[in-house]
């Protein structure tokens, strides 16, 4: 035993929570096929730790202590539940647990299993990311709620409901086999990227809950690449997030105003992060299987080139977008392609690409209107330009982006 006192106990509990929360939940959830029960038991174990550790000292292996305590809770709860509902699986798990109790020191990393459960196709798509953030990272419902701009109580209820479904529907706690893996990995990566997007949108750090969601998403991305080192799309997603994250600070100037990618000071990009992104993308390419995230990362990699030699190869970027649009014809990809075409071949080419996007998709898509306004301005079509700027400003969530667009819209249109 090392250390005494409440501070040490708190610090040890916090450290154990940060470094092993997801592993503990994943391990317990898999054994009991019940995420909610695993979280509850682990929560109780942390409470017990904060009572016991200041008194008895912090144990040598805090994780093992927490796991043993959580298992006791689950066994007790399992016995009650088994008597109440006569459910066989709980009893079976209880027997397994009793036999395993001696091996508490080492336990397998089941976080990948848990990620696949969170992004299971039978789970409501909008709840996959919140579920991951809570079950694997231990974020509380209030923080997740603020990132998703819903009331904390609402998010709490949704999380409870979705965990109940995991248990009651009998979702399998296993990493899908090789045959199913490609189809099942997609939703896992999408959910991680959605978490990153939530954090990325928070450019100004305006909302407490969103501020470091991007970091959490990168952490999950690293976790997946560590556990599935040969999956090119997992590496592609990590590369994409790292490229974007490397430019976070450069997106704002000294007075907090928005700076578009082309005007960013490359000295403010975080180069070690870009290097890591390039290594991940390179490793992804070795598999020789193209994918959406690899294309997106390759586009960001092409933008990073400006930091090395001051040049941006817009033709290459337009070509990469073409590949991306073929794989994933999202409105975002098509607007990106139009922007690249405008840079490579002129505003008319960009505008033609914008015009080819189906009408329903663009009505509320802010980047479309920002680009449209920019291109119309370059072509000297003053009336249309003002209208497009008005829509872009109206749809912009970020106040700095609104100010940036308002300033551009007010400037006299230049001929491109």
């Amino acid at each position, binding site marked *: 035993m090392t250390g005494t006192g409440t501070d040490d106990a708190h610090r040890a509990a916090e450290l154990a929570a940060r470094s092993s929360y997801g592993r503990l939940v994943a391990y317990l959830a898999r054994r009991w096929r019940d995420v909610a029960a695993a979280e509850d038991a682990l929560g109780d174990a942390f409470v017990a730790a904060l009572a016991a550790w200041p008194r008895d000292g912090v144990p040598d292996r805090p994780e093992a202590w927490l796991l043993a305590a959580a298992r006791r809770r689950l066994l007790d709860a399992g016995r009650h539940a088994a008597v109440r509902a006569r459910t066989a699986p709980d009893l079976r798990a209880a027997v397994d647990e009793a036999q395993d109790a001696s091996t508490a020191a080492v336990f397998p990393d089941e976080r990948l299993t848990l990620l696949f459960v969170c992004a299971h196709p039978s789970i409501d798509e909008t709840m996959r990311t919140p579920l991951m953030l809570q079950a694997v990272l231990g974020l509380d419902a209030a923080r997740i709620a603020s990132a998703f701009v819903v009331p904390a109580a609402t998010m709490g209820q949704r999380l409870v409901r979705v965990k109940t479904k995991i248990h009651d529907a*009998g*979702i*399998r706690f296993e990493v899908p086999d090789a045959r199913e893996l490609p189809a099942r990995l997609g939703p896992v990566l999408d959910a991680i990227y959605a978490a990153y997007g939530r954090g990325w949108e928070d450019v100004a750090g305006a909302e407490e809950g969103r501020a470091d969601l991007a970091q959490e998403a990168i952490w999950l991305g690293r976790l997946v690449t560590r556990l599935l080192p040969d999956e090119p799309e997992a590496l592609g997603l990590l590369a994409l997030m790292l490229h974007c994250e490397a430019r976070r600070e450069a997106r704002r100037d000294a007075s907090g105003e928005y700076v578009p990618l082309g005007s960013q000071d490359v000295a403010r990009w975080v180069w070690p992060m870009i290097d890591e992104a390039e290594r991940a993308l390179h490793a992804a390419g070795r598999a020789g299987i193209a994918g959406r995230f690899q294309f997106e990362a390759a586009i960001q990699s092409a933008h990073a080139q400006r930091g090395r030699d001051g040049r941006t190869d817009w033709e290459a970027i337009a070509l990469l977008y073409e590949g991306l649009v073929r794989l994933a014809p999202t409105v975002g990809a098509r607007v990106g392609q139009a922007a690249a075409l405008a840079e490579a071949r002129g505003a008319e080419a960009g505008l033609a690409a914008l015009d080819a996007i189906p009408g329903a998709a663009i009505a509320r898509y802010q980047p479309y209107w920002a680009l449209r306004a920019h291109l119309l301005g370059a072509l000297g079509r003053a009336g249309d330009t003002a209208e497009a700027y008005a829509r872009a400003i109206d749809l912009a969530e970020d106040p700095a982006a609104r100010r940036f667009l308002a300033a551009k819209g007010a400037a006299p249109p230049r001929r491109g």
Partner: protein
Amino acid sequence: MKYTILVYESPTELGARTDGRRQPAYWGAYRAYTQALKEAGIMVGGSGLQPPSVGTTLRQRDGKRQVQDGPYAETKEQLGGYYEIDVPDLDTALDWAARCPAASTGAVEVRPNLVM
């Protein structure tokens, strides 16, 4: 776990049951599927159902029985039958549901049975 595979079929599909030309393929596909479930040793029970027009819907309200002709809800796809299977988890149940003929023509819903 016990799951019920609810087989939803469009009126056209249900019509194939009695349409001389399409009948053999329709019944052949269901016979093969049922046989596969039996051979896998997971089939607990199940039955095809007569068409919704022959159905009767009942509601018990304030101690009174309200009986109504036809299915509970007019929807495009109707419950045509069900299979009850016993498999380890949802993912196995979904694999079996995917092989049901209606998965390709209508829809199948998989629900865990209540433990009573």
